[in-house]
């Protein structure tokens, strides 16, 4: 997969060849200002565009998920550490934050509610220091195994220490316990959203800044070649451990925001399912690009809230998407976007967009066929009592009849065959375009 840093290349090559080097370097800086400005504006005006209470709640969850997935990607994408237990750090921080809220209520811990996410961050960092030293001793498979083990261990603590975790019922608190400040009580969800938005923006900026520091770069080096790192003076364990702690801090901020947002927490936030979701959506969004996990976080909330409403089989669809992503586009959505932006920067997107239409059309046909069959199976298994008929995309299917099954499988087969034809054509075209772009770059370099 060509995840070869297309941004820098594309932007450098997009600048006219005659401008001096300094000007070329300024262009990406302007792009950066634009990107961050856009991100801030998006966070700011999102609740104006989506203002129902469900939408505000989803936006809040998205903000939290962005921080969580970016912190996860500090391990996965930047450090090559495949963690199966990131929920330990978001989850424990949520528990600590809930207790901090209770502390504010009882007067034992007098801080403003708006600082609760920082408490969460410190809690996340504390647990990362406590558990991370052992975890980061090894990279690769042992690292993954240890995170899995620690995840199970911490999840098991929930029932062992009910004083802290509240047993099966969990712990609840009240976020409006602080003194109102300029009318801000954190009662209305919109106030909570803006608190989350501020933390999301600052955390994202801080994590991006981290990628441009000596430790951030050495973390990439440790990902690429831990052996060589030791021969240029760095202790790989220490690099991993420090990055793990910083990742834990931001995971903790996400956990603290979660505590304020939901005001109740139970053992579920520590489960491997949650850790798995961080992994899955960070990967889907794109672990090789900094902003990839932001896309993943948006998908995570949309899938969890909307797709799960739409169909009982949503995890199955999610699994299928994940599978195809791992197989065909291991750089996730972010790398797909970047690669096409590069093609667009060279003015060649026009040549390939009909292929995208063909791909989308055939994929849709195949997906519709597959989805109809999946829904019919689910219907037969779970809703037998309602009779054999079900509504699917505006049509009525008879899951007991031959017609629906035949139609669905025909759609699937034809869709798959045509998709494969379209895919081959597309790959050929794509390869041609990439070659032309390489030539173009060489030509511009030679000027």
């Amino acid at each position, binding site marked *: 997969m060509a995840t070869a*840093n297309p941004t820098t290349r594309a932007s450098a090559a997009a600048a006219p060849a005659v401008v001096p080097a300094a000007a070329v370097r300024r262009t990406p800086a302007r792009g950066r200002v634009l990107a961050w400005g856009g991100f801030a504006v998006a966070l700011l005006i999102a609740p104006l565009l989506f203002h129902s209470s469900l939408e505000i709640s989803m936006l809040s969850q998205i903000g939290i998920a962005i921080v969580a997935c970016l912190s996860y990607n500090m391990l996965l994408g930047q450090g090559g550490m495949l963690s199966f237990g990131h929920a330990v750090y978001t989850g424990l921080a949520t528990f600590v934050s809930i207790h901090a809220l209770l502390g504010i209520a009882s007067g034992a811990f007098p801080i403003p509610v708006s600082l609760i996410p920082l408490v969460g961050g410190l809690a996340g960092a504390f647990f990362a220091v406590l558990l991370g030293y052992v975890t980061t001793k090894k990279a690769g498979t042992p690292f993954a195994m240890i995170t899995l083990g620690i995840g199970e261990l911490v999840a098991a603590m929930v029932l062992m220490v009910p004083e802290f975790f509240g047993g099966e019922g969990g712990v609840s608190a009240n976020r409006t316990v602080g003194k109102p400040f300029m009318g801000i009580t954190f009662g209305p969800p919109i106030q909570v959203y803006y608190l989350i938005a501020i933390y999301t923006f600052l955390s994202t900026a801080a994590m991006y800044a981290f990628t441009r520091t000596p430790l951030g*770069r050495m973390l990439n*080096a440790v990902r690429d*070649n831990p052996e*060589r*790192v030791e*021969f*240029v003076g760095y202790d790989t364990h220490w690099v991993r451990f420090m990055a793990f702690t910083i990742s834990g801090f931001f995971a903790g901020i996400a956990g603290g925001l979660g505590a304020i947002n939901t005001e109740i927490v139970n053992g579920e936030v520590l489960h491997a399912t949650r850790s798995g979701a961080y992994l899955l959506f960070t990967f889907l969004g794109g672990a090789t690009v900094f902003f990839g996990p932001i896309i993943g976080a948006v998908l995570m909330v949309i899938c969890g809230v909307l797709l799960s409403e739409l169909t009982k089989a949503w995890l199955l669809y999610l699994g299928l998407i994940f599978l195809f992503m791992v197989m065909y586009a291991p750089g996730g959505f972010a790398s797909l976007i970047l690669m096409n932006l590069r093609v667009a920067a060279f003015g060649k997107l026009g040549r390939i967009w009909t292929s995208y239409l063909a791909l989308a059309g055939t994929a849709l046909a195949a997906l519709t066929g597959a989805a109809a069959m999946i829904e019919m199976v689910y219907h037969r298994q779970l809703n037998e009592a309602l009779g054999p008929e079900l509504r699917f995309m505006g049509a009525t299917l008879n899951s007991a009849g031959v017609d629906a099954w035949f139609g669905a499988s025909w759609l699937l087969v034809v869709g798959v065959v045509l998709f494969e034809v379209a895919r081959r054509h597309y790959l050929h075209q794509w390869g041609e375009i990439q070659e032309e772009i390489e030539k173009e770059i060489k030509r511009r370099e030679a000027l």
Partner: protein
Amino acid sequence: MSSTGYALELRDVRKSFGKSEIIRGANLAVQAGERVAIIGPNGAGKSTLFNLISGRFAPTSGEIHLHGRRIDGRKPYEINRQGLSRSFQVSNLFTRLSVFENVRCAVLWSLGHRYAFWKFLADLDDANDRTEQILEMIKLDKRRDVLAMNLTYAEARALEIGITIAGGASCILLDEPTAGMSKSETQRFIQLIRDVTVGKTLLTVEHDMGVVFGLADKIAVLVYGEVIAFDTPEAVRANARVQEAYLGSVLAEQQAAAA
């Protein structure tokens, strides 16, 4: 602690893997600024010796001193921080980082930036200037933004050397730096190695006898885990024991190949 004036000293170093002893009491004393080539037949333990000196493995027994300080059994990064740097036989790069980033990673520690996450790389003028310097020295300044995995073989070998010397170590170990290169590339590369290691102590493992006699001030002959000779190229060439054990056959081979 030893008080000898040697840059690098090995005293009766031994290393066993399981029951087989690969290094059987190697002794070597290299003066500061000397260029030493280590030669020997395949399986003599040349690479193992490098691995012992650079800390990849700990010796089973014996002592290794760097500038009079004991380094045997130390971690690679501790040894590197004391001024010893090595290259690898198979290029060992940060594949998904650019050429520039590869070299910059190798200068950060020695300039004291360590694990800093409170300063930006772009502001580290010393590290960036040093990196540019190294890139010019290894003649990769025009390829600075290329990912290491996209380099040609010769370029990757040059970057390997660049990473090795970037930290400013005074003692450099090069493991077959010219392996796999064509004759003309090798010539160019030897000159490059000469240029970038001026004033440093250099140890290199090398197969090409032309290169060895051209580059080295002294030659160490390693046979079955022992240094059987350590002298100037002329003296080693004349050494009967070396001829018997090794050089004769290699020279004969090379003559046969040339004929």
